[in-house]
């Protein structure tokens, strides 16, 4: 496809307005159908048996009693799934995580599953399955797992990326390194150096909708899967590959999705549901309980990070270094690598070095969570940057402005930046009234910056024009927060028609070409590019049809404001044809009018944000209260500003929860102790103030409208912004996230006792 993605600086009529979303009424009336809201005839209920041990060899599983229970239609274990032992390692891990083959690797790891005629019988059947475990020593802490004496989780893993090939297996799967210059030289030039270690605990995406699917496999090898996912095409590929189905015969329909934030980018129970259906010969509905969601679906990494930053008296950073250790769960990942890349991305550094270590632990497989790995690295770096500014006697914002990356700066992760927004967000924060508002006793203000790459990827869109001139837009990126409204605006903009003439839907995998997931802040960025391309292709056809209707050469027809116009004085008496006029005649001018596009949306512009927050601390109890919060972020171009604000506010709220109260708590037995919303404490309505937003628009040169992804960056600064605010309120540097009241009170007491 010859599609020119370059930014043109056009004036907008639809983009940038705030119309009502097309799925609004369904969602306020309870009609919208989510993962668990769908049923099929003859459907069975699937339930999964999970390991109560953090680490154990599965010696044998006896399912015979469960199979004999009346109402049970299928029981499966890993033996009923393909054995990928000598195949693709990544696919092996995905399947092993869905159903443990030889060892249970974490508390909650699936070991068997049943399908029965109702939930009660299914639960009863699980109790009849006898698993003989040989319990092994376990390790759940990231630092302990790196210790030489730690129990080995996978004895076939030898650390990659070391200069010398290791001779012993290790829980460290990979070492990665980024940076440039010479940090030793840089630190030698510094007048002030701050060096600190930080820890962050594991958090969960905390979507309110548990994973849910309905799977139906037919004897002829065709299958249907209804599922809440961020990427139904990816689920199709994975499920087909894992179960030996042909991808095009497995139709995956994405339901409305009740939150994902990265956690619904991986298959968990879907291969199990398909396998149960195949064995039972009936559709199977499998819905996780909240307990299962926490114990067995994707949390983020727990981390341990060392940071060292040096600067000269005038406030110039001379060197920056970080070592980052990230937990991956029991399977290899690249989480520390992302942390190592993003850690210093906000700054213009002559000498910088980051090293990441990927660490296996007996916890659930780490999954992406909104700008995965970046918030923890930003917490450590932005805390140290604040401390350094303090030591230098410089204002924290001015210090960052002085060292901020700009166009032409070599990023700490390698390449040189194009036009970027870190400087403008800092300037906006400096001038924001929030920075000047007075603080009361026990209150502190903090600010911090954040970076995220943003991604693009494979994208496909169909745009169909009905004979009445209405337009349907079929996209393949799942709508997680209003993208159907944004993409309708883009189509309306390009076609020159009114938003109300359009309706956007998310098409299933059999109706549209492949699309990557809605992840990496790519949904609106990528699908808007494909929508523009599809609309332009449709316009070509519309011009051609108008030319036919007028019987003039198509080159003389231009498209303006939703109309075909005959160009040139000789056509003076031809009045413009609207899209509707042309559509009405389409049956006799060549048939249906549609615009299709398939493309790789590359060139997603990087994204920066700076946040400000005020926190009040009760010095007697360590209780915190968020008094005020402001988000400033570059959107490139805000297609639907209300939903951009929503992304900013939602990310900030998740970051606030992470900073203050959310954490996975494991007992000495390696079992998760807080697998529910009661003790995994996400922010409630009364915990938060209004979250003010300021949208900056520094156009992305690689998108026709200048759009950048906006979904993820907003979760990056809050951990550090809040840590800086708490530290400023109480005068003690907080180095362990979450800053729960017991941790704050302990830090205060330690300080008081001197």
């Amino acid at each position, binding site marked *: 496809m010859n599609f020119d993605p370059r930014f043109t600086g056009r004036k907008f009529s639809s983009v940038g307005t705030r119309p009502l979303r097309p799925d609004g009424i369904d969602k306020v009336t309870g009609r919208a159908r989510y993962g668990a809201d769908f049923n099929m005839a003859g459907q069975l209920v699937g339930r999964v048996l999970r390991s109560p041990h953090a680490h154990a060899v599965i010696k044998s599983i006896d399912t015979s009693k469960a199979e004999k229970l009346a109402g049970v239609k299928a029981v499966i274990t890993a033996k009923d799934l393909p054995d990928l032992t000598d195949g693709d390692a990544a696919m092996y891990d995905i399947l092993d995580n869905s159903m443990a083959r030889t060892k249970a690797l974490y508390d909650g790891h699936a070991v068997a599953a049943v399908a029965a005629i109702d939930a009660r019988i299914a*639960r009863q059947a699980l109790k009849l399955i006898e698993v003989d475990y040989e319990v092994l020593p376990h390790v759940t802490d990231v630092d302990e797992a790196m210790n030489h004496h730690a129990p080995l989780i996978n004895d076939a893993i030898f650390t990659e990326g070391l200069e010398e090939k290791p001779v012993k297996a290790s829980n460290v799967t990979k070492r990665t390194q980024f940076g440039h210059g010479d940090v030793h030289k840089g630190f030698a030039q510094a007048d002030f150096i701050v060096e600190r270690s930080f820890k962050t605990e594991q958090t969960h995406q905390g979507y309110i909708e548990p994973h849910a699917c309905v799977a139906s496999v037919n004897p002829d090898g065709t299958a249907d899967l209804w599922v809440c996912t961020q990427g139904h095409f990816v689920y199709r590929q994975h499920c087909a590959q894992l179960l030996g189905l042909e991808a095009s015969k497995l139709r995956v329909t994405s339901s409305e999705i009740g939150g994902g934030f990265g956690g619904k980018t991986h298959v968990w129970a879907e291969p199990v549901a398909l396998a149960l259906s195949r064995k039972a010969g009936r559709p199977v509905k499998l819905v996780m309980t909240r*307990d299962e969601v926490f114990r067995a679906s994707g949390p983020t990494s727990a981390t341990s990070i060392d940071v060292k930053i040096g600067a000269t008296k005038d406030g110039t950073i001379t060197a920056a270094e970080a070592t980052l250790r990230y937990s991956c769960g029991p399977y290899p990942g690249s989480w520390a690598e992302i942390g190592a890349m993003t850690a210093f991305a906000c700054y213009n550094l002559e000498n910088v070095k980051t090293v990441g270590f990927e660490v296996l632990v007996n916890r659930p497989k780490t999954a992406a969570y909104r700008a995965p790995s970046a918030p923890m690295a930003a917490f450590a770096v932005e805390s140290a940057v604040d401390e350094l500014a303090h030591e230098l006697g410089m204002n924290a914002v001015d210090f960052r402005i002085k060292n901020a990356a700009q166009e032409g700066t070599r990023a700490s992760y390698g390449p040189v930046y194009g036009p970027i927004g870190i400087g403008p967000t800092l300037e906006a924060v400096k001038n924001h009234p929030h920075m000047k508002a007075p603080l009361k006793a026990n209150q502190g203000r903090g600010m911090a910056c954040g970076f995220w790459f943003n991604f693009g990827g494979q994208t496909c869109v169909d745009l169909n024009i009905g004979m009445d001139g209405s337009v349907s837009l079929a996209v393949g990126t799942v709508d997680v927060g209003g993208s159907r409204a944004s993409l309708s605006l883009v189509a309306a903009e390009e076609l020159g028609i009114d938003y109300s003439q359009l309706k956007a839907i998310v098409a299933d995998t059999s109706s549209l070409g492949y699309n990557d997931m809605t992840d990496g802040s790519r949904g609106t960025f990528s699908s808007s590019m494909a929508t523009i391309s599809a609309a332009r292709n449709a316009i070509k056809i519309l011009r051609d049809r108008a030319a036919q209707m007028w019987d003039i050469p198509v080159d003389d027809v231009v498209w303006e404001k939703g109309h075909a116009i005959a160009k040139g004085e000789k056509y003076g008496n031809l009045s413009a044809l609207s899209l509707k006029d042309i559509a009405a005649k389409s049956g006799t001018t060549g048939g249906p009018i549609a615009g299709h596009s398939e493309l790789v949306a590359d060139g997603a512009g990087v994204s920066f944000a700076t946040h400000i927050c005020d926190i009040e601390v009760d010095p*007697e*109890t*360590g*209780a915190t*209260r968020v008094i005020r919060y402001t988000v400033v972020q570059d959107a490139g171009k805000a297609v639907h500003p209300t939903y951009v604000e929503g992304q900013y506010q939602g990310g900030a709220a998740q970051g606030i929860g992470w900073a*203050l*109260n959310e954490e996975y*708590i494991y007992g000495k037995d390696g079992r998760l*102790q*807080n697998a529910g*919303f*009661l*003790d995994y*404490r996400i*922010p*409630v309505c*009364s*915990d938060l103030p209004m979250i003010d937003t300021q949208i900056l628009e520094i156009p992305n040169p690689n998108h026709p409208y200048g759009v950048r992804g906006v979904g993820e960056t907003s979760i990056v600064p809050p951990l550090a912004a809040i840590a800086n605010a708490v530290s400023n309120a109480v005068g003690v540097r907080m180095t362990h996230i979450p800053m*729960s*009241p*017991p941790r704050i*009170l*302990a830090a205060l*007491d330690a300080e008081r006792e001197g």
Partner: protein
Amino acid sequence: MRYIRPLSIEDAVGELAKAVGPAAILAGGSDLLVRMKGGFIEPELIVDIKAIGGLADISETADGFRIGAAVPCAVLGEHKALKQAWPGVVEAANLIGSKQVQGRCTITGNLCNASPAADSVPALVAAGAKAVVAGPSGKRTIAVESVPTAPGRTSLAKGEIIEAILLDKRPVHAGDAYLRFIPRTEMDIAVVSAGVNLTLDDHGAIKTARVALGAAAPTVLLVKEAGQVLIGSKLDEATLERLAKICAGACRPIDDKRGTIEFRRKVAGVLAQRAAAIAYKRAGGK
């Protein structure tokens, strides 16, 4: 499994007494249904007591208040006279769970669930509340603090039901208060809590005092020494400091997912001080 909805307390007691397998009493269900869902109990008999006459009412008697076992906590908050007489008890009851849970949960259920962190219990213990127990061998009235014996265990015998909680009529110059510490602003279980109930003499000095702590030991603690230290004082700083010290010392807390031993000790003292100040003010002290 059977679900029954008896119309009299005698029928309920009779059904419970003759039940062969595990039986459960259902009032608000906010603990029972969670435990059933988690597979922690599988009752063979569920006795819904909400249709029993009188159990869903709050009545004012010559001696004080009688709060039926099936009265949802939200109703306590809507009862003006009760709120005025026992603001600490009512605010404690209104801290349990969310608005949704408030519409269902009961203080009797909160007491019988026997959690050391139950919100209404320290306030009830501080208030000197009593429980009316109906059982196969008749009725008895006991102090609420004698109901829980350990986490999840009560002193109630098979077939016994608490049918009401009794609160005394208030003298002039009386006030109570309850405070808990939670990490969020709502929806959490108390990490530690304190209930204080005071009466004052005509000069504003404390005449009687009861202090109870929650989530500080296996059962809610009535800290008699803490009450004694308040008597005769007008809550001067030295008294408050001693109160905090006694409360911190009386705690026998544990380290768990909600807090540490150190944190609980320290904050128990802080909350007792703050609750005492509120109760004192409510009693008319200056």
